[in-house]
C-alpha cells in the first residue's frame, strides 16, 4: 500500500518520457511542440504532487487563528506562473513554425533539412 | 433520509446516462448518431448529476453556484452540438451541396 503513494511520481516519469519521445523521435514540428507541452505538464504534476499534504486543504485561510492543515503554497505559486509562461513560449514556438512553413512549404524536419541543403 | 436516497438515485442514474452516452459515442455507426448519443451526456447526465449534488448541499450558496453551472451547461451543450453538426454538414463530400442559411 505504501508503494502506491509513489503512483503520482511514476505517472510524472512516464508523461515526461512520452513528451521527450515526441520531441526527439517525431519529425513534425507541431508534434514536437505538443510533446513539449506534455513535458511541461509532467513537471507541473511533479511540483503539485510534492506540495500535497495528507488531510490538508487548499492554502486559503478561512478562519485565522484556528489550527488547520494546509498543502504547501509555494509550489502552487511557482507552477501558477509557469503555466502562463509556458503558453507564451509555446505561442512563440508556433509563430516560428508558421514562418518555417511559409519559407519551406513543410514542417517535417527531414524535408526542411533536405530543402535547406538544396538552396 | 428520503432526500439522501433520492439524491443517490439521481447521481446513479446520471452516471448511467453519462456512461451510455460515452458507449454510444464509441459504438454507433456514423457521426450524427454518435452526436445524438453524446448529447445524452450533455442533457440528462448533467441534469441528474448536478440535481443530485444540489439535493446533497441543501439551500446554500453552493446550490446557487450549481444552478449557474447547470444553466451554462444547458446553454453551451446544445450550441456546441449544433456547431458540430453544422460543420459536419458543410464539410461532407457526398450529398447535395450545402448552402449558407
Amino acid at each position, binding site marked *: 500500500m505504501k508503494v502506491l503513494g509513489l503512483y503520482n511520481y511514476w505517472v510524472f516519469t512516464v508523461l515526461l518520457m512520452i513528451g521527450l519521445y515526441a520531441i526527439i523521435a517525431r519529425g513534425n514540428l507541431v508534434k514536437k511542440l505538443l510533446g513539449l507541452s506534455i513535458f511541461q505538464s509532467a513537471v507541473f504534476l511533479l511540483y503539485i504532487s510534492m506540495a*500535497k499534504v495528507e488531510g490538508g486543504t487548499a492554502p486559503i485561510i478561512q478562519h485565522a487563528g484556528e489550527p488547520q492543515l494546509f498543502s504547501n503554497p509555494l509550489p502552487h505559486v511557482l507552477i501558477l506562473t509557469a503555466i502562463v509562461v509556458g503558453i507564451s513560449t509555446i505561442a512563440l514556438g508556433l509563430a516560428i513554425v508558421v514562418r518555417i512553413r511559409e519559407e519551406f512549404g513543410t514542417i517535417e524536419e527531414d524535408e526542411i533539412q533536405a530543402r535547406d541543403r538544396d538552396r | 433520509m428520503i432526500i439522501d436516497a433520492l439524491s443517490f438515485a439521481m447521481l446513479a442514474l446520471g452516471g448511467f446516462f453519462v456512461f451510455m452516452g460515452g458507449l454510444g459515442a464509441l459504438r454507433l455507426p456514423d457521426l450524427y448518431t454518435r452526436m445524438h448519443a453524446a448529447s445524452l451526456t450533455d442533457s440528462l447526465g448533467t441534469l441528474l448529476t448536478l440535481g443530485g449534488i444540489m439535493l446533497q448541499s441543501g439551500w446554500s450558496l453552493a446550490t446557487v453556484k450549481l444552478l449557474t453551472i447547470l444553466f451554462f451547461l444547458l446553454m453551451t451543450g446544445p450550441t456546441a452540438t449544433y456547431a458540430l453538426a453544422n460543420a459536419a454538414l458543410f464539410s461532407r463530400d457526398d450529398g447535395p451541396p450545402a448552402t449558407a442559411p
Partner: protein
Amino acid sequence: MVTAFGFVLLTLLLVTAVAIVVTPNLFVAVMLTSIFSLLMAATFFLLDAADVALTEAAIGAGMSTILFLGALALIGEHEARRRRRPWLPLAVIGLTAFTLIYATFDKPRLGDPAAPVHQHVAPWYLEQTPELMGMSNVVTAVLAGFRAYDTLGEVLVILTAGFGVLLILAERRAGGRPDRPPAVGLRHHLIPRVVGQLLIPFIVLFGLYLQFHGEFGPGGGFQAGAIIAVGIVLHALLEGEAAGRAILPTRVLTGLMAGGAFLFAAVGIAGMLLGGEFLDYSGFSADPVAGQQLGVHLVEAGVGITVTGTLVAAFHAFADRERPA
C-alpha cells in the same frame, strides 16, 4: 475514494498523452491536448491546488487550444509518416524512465507531512500571511507579495514572448489586402452567435471577479487575464477578425502588454521611494497591512493587463495572417 478517483485521472492522463503522440492527424492531437489539460486541471484540484487548477483550465484547455488551432489553420493538419522504426529514441527514453522510476523509491510518499519540502519556508508563509498581509489566499500573498520579484521576472518573460510572436508574424497580414474578402467569423450562424454574445459579458465579469477577489479566494491576475482574454477572443471568433481587431487594435494591445509590466515595476519603485525595499508595499498607507493589500491589488492588476494583452495579441497575430498556398 478521492485517492481512487485520482488514480483513474492519472491513468487517463497517460492514455491521452500516448494518444496525442500516436495520432497522425494534428487536429485530433490538439483536441486531445485540450482534454489532457482538463484532466490535468482536475488532478491539480484533487491535490489541493485550486489556483493552479483554475489557471490550467483557462490556459491549457481554453487559450492554448485556440492558439494551436489558429496555427494549424496556417500549417495544415497532416503529419507525414516516418518510415524507419525509432529504436534509438525508444532506448533512450526507456533507460531514462528506468533511472527516474528507480530514483522515486527514495522520495517521500504522496502527502507525507514530514517531507523536506514542507519544512523550510512554507510554514512561515502560512503562519505570517494573515498577520503581515491580511489576506486569506496564501498563494496570492506569496505570488504578489513575498515573492513578487519572481513574478515580475515571469511577467517580463511573458511580455518578451508576446512581442516575439508579434515581431515574427509582423509582415504579410491578410487584413490589409483589398482583394481578399474579410473574414466574417460565425456571423451567418445565428445560434452560436447569439449564445456566444450572451456568454461574453459573464466570462469577462467572472474574470474581473477573479482579478479583484484573488486575495480571499482562488484567483489573481494570471487566471483573470487568461479568462478575460478568452472572452475577447470569443468575440473575435464570432464576429470575424476585423470586428475583433476594431475593439482592441494592435496599438492598444501592445500598450496593454507593456503598460501592465510597467505598472508592476512602477509599484516596486514607488515602494523604494516611500522608504522601503523594491516591491515592499508597506509604505503605501499609514497602516502597513492596508499598504500591502493596495500594493498586491496594483501588482495583480499589472499582471492581469499584461497577460490579457499578450494572449489576445498572439491570437490576432495567428488569425490575421494570410494562409500560404
